[in-house]
């Protein structure tokens, strides 16, 4: 029989102090709309909001000052809504520099969880690329570094793990997208001490449910879901249909929220990283990280209904 909850003076003081710190660290607007649901990174227990921010295509705006400011506004809305993880890669053109611009404009938000990648065929040139990426972002160190699309992972992964041992990065991971090289991903997950794996997962692309997501749970690996909207194509394909009646039950007011809630409600998924250029969309995405999440039965219903559209 569980014991009755008790309140000690230490608990009360600690809770009040934590609440005060939370108010101090988080913008008031986030509290106003409800802080996003968080999930733990299995290797440390550190919690992350279940919706992050991707930068593929959307943040690659070059030197266009107006578009850079739009990206900064998206980042501002993201942090204001309680978002933390921003993900990028050297492959994404100017995205890293644009993120750095936004971070400077926002005066370096303390909530940032910086996730970047190494993407170069030469293992020897990996450290140089990481250093260049770090300068673009303007961070002291990355929170997470991933081997992008497993490119030269045999060389990069040991280097990243060595960086982690030296506390020059906090977490290490690997990525793939659109179902590529899943067998290799599984082998690495089973044999290497990685903290994160990033894969494509959404309400239609569910191959990872078979082996990778269960393996991630078994091995205590956090999962980042990329391409949640298939670069917008998924939204465009479903939005001509009215929202199903069950959308209200899970607190979803749009198809984007339906899809994000589906992704984030998988027990193995830590967060999804939709990319956008619109402030309204980033608010909508973060709002999907609040309120109820679908249970297993609802998830089955959601997947079946969307597949039938």
């Amino acid at each position, binding site marked *: 029989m569980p014991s009755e909850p008790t309140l000690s003076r230490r608990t009360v003081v600690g809770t009040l102090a934590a609440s005060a710190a939370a108010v101090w660290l988080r913008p008031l607007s986030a509290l106003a709309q409800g802080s996003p649901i968080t999930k733990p990174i299995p290797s440390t227990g550190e919690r992350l909001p279940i919706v992050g921010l991707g930068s593929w*295509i*959307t943040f*690659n*705006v*070059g*030197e*266009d000052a*107006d*578009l850079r400011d739009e990206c900064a506004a998206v980042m501002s809305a993201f942090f204001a809504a309680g978002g933390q993880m921003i993900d990028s890669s050297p*492959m*994404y*053109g*100017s995205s890293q520099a644009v993120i750095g611009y936004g971070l400077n404009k926002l005066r370096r938000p303390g909530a940032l969880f910086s996730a970047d990648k190494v993407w170069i065929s030469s293992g020897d040139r990996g450290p140089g690329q990481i250093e260049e990426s770090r300068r673009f972002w303007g961070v002291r160190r990355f929170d997470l570094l991933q081997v992008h699309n*497993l490119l030269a992972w045999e060389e990069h992964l040991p280097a990243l793990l060595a960086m982690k041992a030296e506390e020059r990065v906090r977490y290490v991971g690997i990525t793939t997208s*659109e*179902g*590529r*090289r899943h067998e290799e991903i599984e082998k690495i997950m089973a044999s290497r001490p990685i903290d994160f794996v990033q894969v494509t997962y959404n309400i239609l692309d569910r191959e990872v449910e078979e082996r990778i997501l269960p393996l991630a749970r078994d091995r205590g690996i956090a999962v980042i879901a990329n391409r949640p909207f298939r*670069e917008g194509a998924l939204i465009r394909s479903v939005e001509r249909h009215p929202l199903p009646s069950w959308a209200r039950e899970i607190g979803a007011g749009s198809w984007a929220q339906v899809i994000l809630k589906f992704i984030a409600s998988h027990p193995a998924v830590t967060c999804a990283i939709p990319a956008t*250029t619109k402030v309204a969309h980033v608010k909508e995405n973060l709002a999907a990280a609040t309120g109820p999440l679908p249970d297993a039965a609802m998830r089955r219903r959601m997947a079946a209904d969307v597949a039938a559209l």
Partner: protein
Amino acid sequence: MPEWWTYGLSDFLLFSPRTYYRLLEHHNRAMWPAQLLVAGLALVILGLLRRPTTGQGRIISGILALLWIWVSWAFVWKRYATINWAASYLVPLFVLEALLFFWIGVAGGRLIFHLRRNAAGMLGIALLVLALAFYPVLAPLSGRPWEQAEIFGLAPDPTVIASLGLLLLLEGGVRWPLLAVPLLWCLASGATLWAMGSREALILFAAAFFVILAATRPTLRWRKHEYS
């Protein structure tokens, strides 16, 4: 690249159409009033085609060499490469094309251009008209603002297509070394536009197709009795 067959064109598109067309807009603003200068150069080319003079080939080749270098530096390198890292690998090819025009046409004096009424000649003229007159109005025709117009001598696509048109007007037949880079650009830029969902891709693909057809079909090649 592992499992390369699983990649589609869209996997290689790093930027949005909006970003790309705004890039052209910023380029046009930054280049003003160079639009007037390149329009003047286009008129010089047309005038020399209409009334060939001594050194016609050298002058046209020199203009083309200059514009290929200019476009590669001012647009491809300084602007396009900021959103498409792959573009930086194309800059040496633009420089190579410029050097070929300079080496063969200016220094060697071996490029002479003739208006002809055979199929290749007509195609060459059509491509010139397309590049010089039609490309600048493509933006408004596609629902984009005038400021995003693609102009010969400033933007790569019309510059490349005009070059292909002129290369079909060469006396002495096909010069494959000079055709290679423009054709490659047509494929690369066409693929990018296609991934962006732009119908302008079809112009580049069609131009490349018909130029290859004209260059490989003997009946379409230059013949001495086909001078206009």
